[in-house]
């Protein structure tokens, strides 16, 4: 400890702060440049990905049917994976020119921001706040929020959760959705947020939370003999593919891919394949 004198400590502090400031300032500079060049055109955005030789996509690996790493095969599979592959096929003519980066609700924003991925297809709900920061395609799926409860707890509707704790995943819009729904019912609930879905489920099973709230399709992956999904469903969540805010060109490109898939019936086939056609 003696190694670091008073002055050294103070200096270290200043350096640390300076680094933060520089980082922020540096970002500011680059943003001006980007603003000047305005939105990147679809062509140049796609060209950049082509140059990279691979489409980098942030996907879920823990949401069955959407993005899920099959423990048997070790492959990541699901509806969103197939969508991403369709985009890769459009760009490269090869659906395997794709690099999948596992994301969580918490990490997908930062991964987009720092350019680690070209796009996010990971049950990413479109809302106003997020639209301010990212470019979203048109929704490709709409999923209402549902509640998973323990059968033994005798909870039959959202109302029964008055005063109780609800587990929600961190970084998801679920909390806001349930909060609003609870307000409408005239009840108050509290929330416990966890980094992963399985921790939400664990909290439900241990009695830390009376319910686990999440998009219903997600919940279906966590139902077991002891639990059930309540009939209540609210706040339909629209999933979109997200890019950087200034990458609207690529957004338009992917939108076109999605529209083409819808028109050709390919989208319906995929939904059927993943039993998501309701």
């Amino acid at each position, binding site marked *: *400890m003696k190694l670091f004198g008073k002055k050294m*400590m103070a200096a270290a*502090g200043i350096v*640390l702060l300076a680094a*933060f400031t520089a*980082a*922020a300032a*540096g*970002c*500011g*500079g*680059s*943003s*001006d440049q980007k603003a000047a060049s305005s939105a990147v055109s679809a062509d140049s955005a796609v060209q950049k990905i082509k140059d990279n030789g691979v489409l980098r996509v942030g996907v879920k690996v823990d949401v069955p049917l959407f993005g899920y790493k099959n423990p048997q095969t070790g492959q990541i599979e699901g509806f969103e994976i197939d969508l991403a592959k369709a985009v890769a096929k459009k760009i490269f003519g090869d659906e395997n020119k794709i690099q999948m980066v596992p994301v969580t*609700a*918490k990490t997908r*924003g*930062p991964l987009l*921001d*720092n350019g680690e991925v070209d796009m996010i297809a990971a049950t990413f709900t479109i809302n106003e*706040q*997020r639209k*301010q*920061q*990212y470019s979203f395609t048109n929704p490709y799926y709409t999923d209402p929020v549902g509640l998973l409860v323990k059968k033994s707890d005798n909870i039959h509707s959202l109302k029964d959760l008055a005063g109780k704790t609800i*587990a929600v995943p*961190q*970084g*998801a*819009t679920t*909390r*806001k959705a349930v909060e609003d729904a609870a307000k409408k019912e005239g009840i108050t609930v509290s*929330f*416990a*947020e*966890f*980094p992963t879905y399985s*921790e939400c489920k*664990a*909290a439900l*099973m*241990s*009695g*830390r939370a009376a319910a686990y709230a999440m998009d219903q399709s997600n919940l279906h992956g966590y139902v077991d003999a002891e639990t059930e999904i309540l009939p209540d469903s609210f706040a339909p969540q629209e999933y979109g593919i997200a890019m*950087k*805010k200034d990458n609207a060109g690529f957004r338009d490109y992917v939108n076109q891919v999605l529209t083409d898939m819808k028109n050709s019936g390919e989208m319906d086939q995929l939904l059927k394949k993943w039993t998501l056609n309701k």
Partner: protein
Amino acid sequence: MAEVFADYKWAALFDDRGIFLEGLVTTLEVAVFALILALVLGVIFGIAGVFPKTWVRIINRIYVEFFQNTPLVIQAIFLYHALPHLHIMIPVTAIGILGVGIYSGAYMSEVFRSGINAVPRGQLESGLSQGFGYWQAMWHIVLPQARRTILPALGNQAIAIVKNTSVLAMIAGGDLMYVSDSWSGMNMYYGPAYLTTGIIYWVICFTMTKYVKRLEQKGAVG
């Protein structure tokens, strides 16, 4: 990367500063009580580590080796998710205090043990020969002399405690790290959230470092 630190995000952070303040209060609360617990455990198990009776020393080793060699996160998750299945439901703040306190207590007991070992054996014998009980001799004669070697290491442990309280973020503990995660997860304004949170932790720990250094200097004179 400018978007990460966009002005409107800072504005939102300022508007919601109450949330962060609450988190900070929880963090400090847990840190203070965990520190007290860790000190008590540190003294008791530190002395157990030099105790004449073998079985007492074995208990010290089990405690230290267990808690030093398993991640705090796993201990916290165990207390939070597993214990309720045994019908033991500890409130999450208490888990923070117990979890961090017991974990850090293991490190502190090693600090006390080595500090005590650095005091010549004759000091304890001198006390015992005068009719002091073992604990009395420890408290009045050995520990005050161990102070100088113990204090700086204890200070480091105290700082680690503050940082370790962030384990609560894993178990919905409502601490500073958790509210930072939660708030930024909701709106994706993680840039200002984590930078601010980082600076708050840094300020707390830096202040503590300073304080410990002052204590040290005082100790060196006394």
